[in-house]
């Protein structure tokens, strides 16, 4: 099962995602947390430790994986009945798309490279989803502002938009979190029929 959760920064999407993961995890199965940010950045270190403390306080035991890129490498780590929370897609995309920027490489300018990155991420998600019982993906809303005027930002937004569209299509449940409250965008009614924002 694939669950997709998006929201703005500080919207409470991570907390909701963690709650969902705990809800879906059955006794005897494992909870996995896949962190995607590059540990190297000092700014992120504090947020990482805060999120980690929150998870410890929750009373459930999480296994944390640091995976800033190459999602598919993780597949072997999970068992069929496990619940996996990926937080968040935004960092993964930025790490994959801008890989090598420190060496002045700007591969993201090439359509061919962007296509490869897109496929790589979608394949990684598919593999993870097949490998566990529930995969929860958390992502950010980064599209509601003014058009980007530098190519890096433009291609990043384009890639995020296309990924979100694809993931929403494949996901069983989709939530948008606003002010800590989840809004159901896609899911199932009591009879098990698929419904979207216009019908729920």
């Amino acid at each position: 099962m694939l669950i997709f959760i998006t929201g703005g920064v500080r919207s409470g999407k991570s907390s909701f995602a963690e709650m969902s993961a705990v809800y879906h995890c059955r006794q005897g199965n494992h909870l996995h947390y896949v962190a995607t940010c590059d540990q190297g950045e000092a700014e992120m270190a504090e947020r990482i430790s805060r999120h980690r403390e929150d998870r410890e306080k929750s009373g459930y035991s999480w296994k944390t994986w640091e995976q800033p890129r190459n999602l598919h490498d993780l597949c072997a780590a999970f068992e069929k009945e496990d619940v996996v929370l990926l937080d968040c897609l935004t960092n993964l995309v930025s790490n994959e798309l801008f890989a090598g920027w420190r060496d002045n490489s700007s591969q993201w300018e090439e359509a061919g490279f962007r296509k490869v990155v897109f496929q790589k991420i979608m394949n990684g998600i598919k593999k993870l989803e097949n490998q566990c019982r529930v995969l929860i993906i958390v992502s950010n809303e980064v599209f509601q502002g003014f058009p980007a005027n530098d190519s890096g930002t433009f291609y990043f937004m384009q890639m995020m938009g296309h990924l979100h569209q694809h993931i929403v299509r494949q996901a069983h449940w989709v939530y948008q979190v606003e002010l800590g409250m989840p809004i159901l965008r896609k899911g199932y009614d009591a009879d098990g029929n698929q419904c979207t924002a216009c019908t729920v």
Partner: protein
Amino acid sequence: MHFVTGGAFHGKAKWVMKTYSASRNMEGWFNLYEAECPETDQFETSLVVLEGMEQLVKKVVQENKKGTREVLQKKLQSWLEWESDVRGRRLVLIGTDIGKGIVPMEEENRRWRDVSGWFFQDTAMAAERVNIVWYGLEQTIK
């Protein structure tokens, strides 16, 4: 008139193509990123799609220091008249919402953003049907 809006890269045009069995290459589909907004006498098909409303706003803002909202309201009026002139005509407007980010630094961009917001309100008011597309999922708000 049918107004379709939402954030950038949310699949708005894709949704319109699916809903109207239309294609970007068809006659009557105008991409305002590539060409100027045509006048209604250039509409030759019963289904006309104008993609990139925010580009029309940008141009109007660049060309007019004042009265931008009124210029755009006249446009709306002409579109409504075109539609009601002949039964079965349908105009679909696609506009990217650019109003939910940080305030732009440049004065002209702030005006572009403001006028887009007002114009989109006027458009929604005039339209018979309004949809917001969110990553391919539609929400009917009118």
